[in-house]
C-alpha cells in the first residue's frame, strides 16, 4: 500500500503520546518506561511515532519538503515497531506501516540515505548486505560436511543470512546451529556459496524495488531446493521470509521457522536432550524482528465504512504485536540445565529495540550504539551475568558496545547455549 492509503490512519493520531512509552499497564517504575529509541534520543516530538504520522499527513496535504532535518528524522528510526504496539493498545490505526511508506516515498522521490544506498548497492552487486571482503558465503561450514540443499534432497533448508555467514565473529552461531540440528537428527541442508540475501534490510532502508528484485532471486533459489521448511537463526531473515514475503505474495506454502521454534519442537519431541551446561543467570532480549515484527502477516482488503467510526468492511484485523515469537526462546532457555532466566522490565511485544534495525546501524552507528547501550544497562539491572538473544545483529551490536563501554555482561546467541548443553 502506498502512503496515500494510510491517510485515514495518520489523521487518527491525537497526539496522546502513548507511542513514546511502553503500554501503560506495563510501566513498572521510573526507569524503563520509554519504548521508542528515536524520541528518547532526540527528544523532539517529530522523532516519535505520532509526530512522524503528523508529518506524513501534512506531507500528503501540502507536499513533502525534503530538508536535511526531515531526512534526519526519517532515517533516525529503527522501524522497530514499538510505537505501533503501544498505540494499538488503545487505538485502531496503523503507525509503523505509514512510517515505513514515508521512507519508501523518500527513496522513490530521490532522497535515499547515502550510507544506506551504499549498502543496497553492495547487495545488488554481491547479494550480501554486509561486506564480503574476499570471503565466500559458505566458508563458515568448512569441515562440517553439511549437505547442499541444491544437490541433495533435505527436509529443511537452513538459511544462514548475510551477517552470520560473513562476519567471522558470528560464524560460530552458524556452526553451532548446524551441530545442534545434526545432533537432533534433522534432515537439513544449506545453500553454501549459492545462498543469497533475503533482501529485507533493503526494504527497511526504503529501497522497496531493490528488495523485490532480491527477494525474487532468493525465492527462486529456495524453490529450487524443493524444501517445504526453511529455518534460520537470524531474526531479521525470519521476519522477512515469514512476514514480508507473505505480504508481497512471495512466500507461498513455505513453512518458515526461527531456530528457536525448531529447537522448542525438537526438545518437545525428545530429539534434543540437554544434559550439561554452565550455571548461569541470563536475561533474554527479544529481537524486534522475531518478536512484535515477527507476527504473521494478515491479508486483508476492505474499505472504510462511511460515518462516525474508523471501521472497515470487512472488519480490519490489526497486527498489534500480540502473536510474535516470544515463548519459544524462553521455553528453550528453561530447558537448559543450569540456566536461570530473569526478565528485563521491557520484554516481548514492548521490548526495547536492540538498536540495529531499520538501517540505523549503517546510517547512524552512534545512535545504534546508544540504543544498544540503553538495553545493556537495562539488562544489567536484572543482575544477570549474560544477555542472550536470537539475532546476530543484536548480538554483534551488544558485543561491540560492551567492548567499547566496558561491562561485565556476557553476550550469547541462544543457539550457543543450546550447543553447549547438548
Amino acid at each position, binding site marked *: 500500500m502506498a502512503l496515500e492509503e494510510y491517510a*485515514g490512519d495518520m*489523521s*487518527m493520531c*491525537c*497526539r*496522546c*503520546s*502513548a507511542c*513514546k*512509552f511502553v*503500554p*501503560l*499497564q*506495563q*510501566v*513498572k*517504575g*521510573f526507569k524503563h*518506561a520509554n519504548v521508542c529509541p528515536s524520541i528518547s534520543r532526540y*527528544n*523532539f*516530538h*517529530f522523532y516519535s511515532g505520532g*509526530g*512522524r504520522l*503528523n*508529518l506524513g*499527513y*501534512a*506531507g500528503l496535504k*501540502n507536499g513533502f*519538503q525534503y*530538508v536535511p*532535518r*526531515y531526512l534526519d*528524522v526519517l532515517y533516525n528510526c529503527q522501524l522497530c515497531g514499538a510505537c505501533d*504496539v*503501544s498505540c*494499538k*493498545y*488503545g*487505538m*485502531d*490505526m496503523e503507525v509503523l506501516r505509514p512510517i515505513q511508506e514515508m521512507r519508501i516515498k523518500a527513496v522513490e522521490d530521490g532522497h535515499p540515505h547515502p550510507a544506506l544506498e551504499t549498502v543496497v548497492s553492495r547487495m545488488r552487486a554481491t547479494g550480501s548486505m554486509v561486506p564480503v571482503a574476499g570471503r565466500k558465503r559458505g566458508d563458515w561450514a568448512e569441515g562440517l560436511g553439511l549437505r547442499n540443499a541444491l544437490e541433495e534432497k533435505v527436509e529443511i533448508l537452513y538459511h544462514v543470512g548475510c551477517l552470520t555467514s560473513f562476519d567471522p565473529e558470528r560464524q560460530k552461531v552458524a556452526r553451532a546451529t548446524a551441530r545442534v540440528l545434526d545432533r537432533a537428527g534433522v534432515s537439513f541442508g544449506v545453500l553454501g556459496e549459492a545462498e543469497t540475501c533475503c533482501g529485507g534490510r533493503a526494504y527497511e532502508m526504503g529501497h522497496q524495488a531493490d528488495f523485490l528484485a532480491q527477494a525474487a532471486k532468493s525465492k527462486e533459489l529456495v524453490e529450487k531446493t524443493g524444501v517445504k521448511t526453511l529455518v534460520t537463526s537470524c531474526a531479521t531473515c525470519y521476519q522477512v521470509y515469514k512476514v514480508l514475503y507473505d505480504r508481497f505474495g512471495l512466500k507461498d506454502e513455505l513453512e518458515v521457522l526461527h531456530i528457536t521454534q525448531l529447537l522448542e519442537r525438537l526438545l518437545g519431541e525428545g530429539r534434543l536432550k540437554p544434559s550439561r551446561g554452565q550455571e548461569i543467570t541470563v536475561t533474554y532480549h527479544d529481537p524486534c524482528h522475531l518478536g512484535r515484527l515477527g507476527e504473521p502477516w494478515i491479508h486483508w482488503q476492505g474499505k472504510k465504512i*462511511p*460515518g*462516525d*467510526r*474508523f*471501521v472497515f468492511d470487512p*472488519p480490519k484485523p*490489526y497486527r*498489534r*504485536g*500480540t*502473536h510474535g515469537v*516470544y515463548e519459544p526462546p524462553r521455553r528453550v532457555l528453561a530447558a537448559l540445565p543450569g540456566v536461570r532466566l530473569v526478565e528485563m522490565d521491557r520484554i*516481548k*511485544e*514492548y521490548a526495547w529495540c536492540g538498536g540495529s534495525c531499520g538501517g540505523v546501524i549503517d546510517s547512524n552507528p552512534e545512535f545504534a550504539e546508544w540504543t544498544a547501550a540503553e538495553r545493556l544497562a537495562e539488562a544489567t539491572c536484572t543482575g544477570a551475568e549474560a544477555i542472550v538473544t536470537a539475532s546476530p545483529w543484536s548480538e554483534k551490536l551488544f558485543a561491540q558496545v560492551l567492548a567499547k563501554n566496558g561491562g561485565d555482561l556476557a553476550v550469547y546467541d541462544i543457539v550457543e547455549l543450546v550447543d553447549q548443553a547438548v
Partner: protein
Amino acid sequence: MALDKEIYAAFAGVVGEENICDDPALMPAYFFTDFAAVVLPKSTAEVQAVVRLCNQFRLQFRPICTGWTGFFRPGTVLLDLRRMDQIVEINEKNMYAVVEPYVTSAQLQAELFKRGLCTNLKGAGAQCSAMLRGHGHLDQSMGADDRNHLAVEWVTPDGELVRLGSLGSVGEWFSGDGPGPSLRSLISSVVPPSCTPGVFTKVAMKLYHWPGPTRYSLTGYSPRYLLAEKPPNMMARYYSFPTLDQMWQAEIKIGEAEIALELMGFNVAMVAANITTSNEEDEAMFKRLSQEVQGPGFFVIIAGNSPDDFAYKKKVLETIIAENEGMSLKSVEDPEIEGILLTQCTRISASVRETFRPGGNFKSIPIMGQRDLTIRWAVGAGQAKLPLIEQGLIADDGGGFFGWGVEHGHLGKTEIFCKFSPLNPEARKAVDAWAEQQSNRALEEKYFALTMGPPEQIDSKVGPALSNYHLWWYKVLATLDPNEVIPDKGVSKLHP
C-alpha cells in the same frame, strides 16, 4: 515561520543548538500548530532564560509536557518540557512527591505502588504528566484537581521564579498555602480561564494510601492484558439503577460511607470501550451491555486494608445498592473483565479507547461543581446528542454522560463528550454547535458557567454571569504578563 537568526541564536545559547528547532518543515508534527520554534529546556534556570527571551523579543509562548496537547496560535514558541523528567523526591513520611513536568503519571504511580502509596492519575491517561491538574478515576478517595498540588515552583510569564506555599518560606514542599506566598487561586483554580500563565517547573503532588499490590501481576499480550490473580482485598463492580435519582442517591450514600476507592460514573459505552480491543468489538459489547443494564449506573472499586475492612466495605456497598434497587452488571462480575477494569481504571491506561479510538477525535464539556445540578444538565446534553447519533455524525454511546463525587462526594465532576471523525467537516460543525448550545443552556438555565470556553464567550457571557471575574483576571494577567507573551489570555484550546 522560522525565527529571526538573532533570536534563534539567543535561544540556542540557552538550551544548546541540539535543543531548538525552528524548521517550518518539521512543525506540522506538532498537531495542528505551526510553532515559530520548539525549544527543549533542561532546567528551571533554562526555562527562566527562555521565558525572558520571549519577553525581550515579544514572542508568545506556551509550555507543554507529556500527554495530549491543545491547539495553539501559529507563531507561538513552544517550550517542550520533555527534558525535565525527574522525580525529585518521594517523601513517604509526609506523603508527597516532587516531580518535574515530564514525569508521567504511570512512572510516578509505579514507584508509589512499591511504597504503598498512590496519587490521583488524571483521566487523560497515565502517559500524561504526573503534575497535571484535572480529574480522574480515583477522585473519590484521592482528592482532585489543584487540591493535590502542594508547593509549586513557578516561572511567571515575565521569567521571575516564584516558590509558592511552604517552599517560599522554609524551602520544603509540604503545603501549597503557606507559610509563604499562596497564589493558589490565581495559578491553579479554574478562575484563570483554563491555563496557568507561565511554567510550572516542579510541583509537589499530594499522595494517598494505596491498599492494592505493589505491582499488578499481568498475563497476556497487548492489547489484552489480564490480571493473573485478583488481589483478595479488592473488588470491582458496575451497578445500574432504575432511575437517575436512585443512582444519584446511591452515589451520595457511598460517599458518606467513605468506602469506595473509586466511584466512576461510567456510562456503559465507556465500560465497553475499556474492556474491548477494537472498534468492532466495542460496538458489539456496547450493544450487549446496553441490554444488561436497567438504567444509568456507575463503576465502583472497593479495597480493604484488612479482611475485616474489606468485608465491612463490601457489606455497606451491597446494602446501599440494594436500598436503591441497583443491579450489578453480570458481565463485569466475570473475573476476567473485573480484572481488566480493576487494572485499567486504577492505572488509567485506556483513556484513548474511550475517547479517540472510535473516530479519531472527541469534544468534551467538563464541569467541576455540584453533582445534583450538573447531572440534571447532563441528561439534557445527552439527549441532545441523540439526533447526531441518528445522523451518523458521532459515535453511538446512547447519549451517555459520566461523572462522580470527588473526595467522597463533597465536590463533584460531570463530563459529556461526542466522539467523531476529524475528517468529517459536517460532524465537526454539528459537534461544535452541540457544544455551544449546551454551554449556553447551562448558563441560561443556571446550572453552571463553563470557564473553559473561547475568550469571546468568556467576555460576552461567562464573565458577566460570574461577577465579571474575567475583568479582574485580565488585570492580574496584565501585571503578570506585561509584554503579553501569554497567548489567548491564558485560554487553552483543545480543538482548532
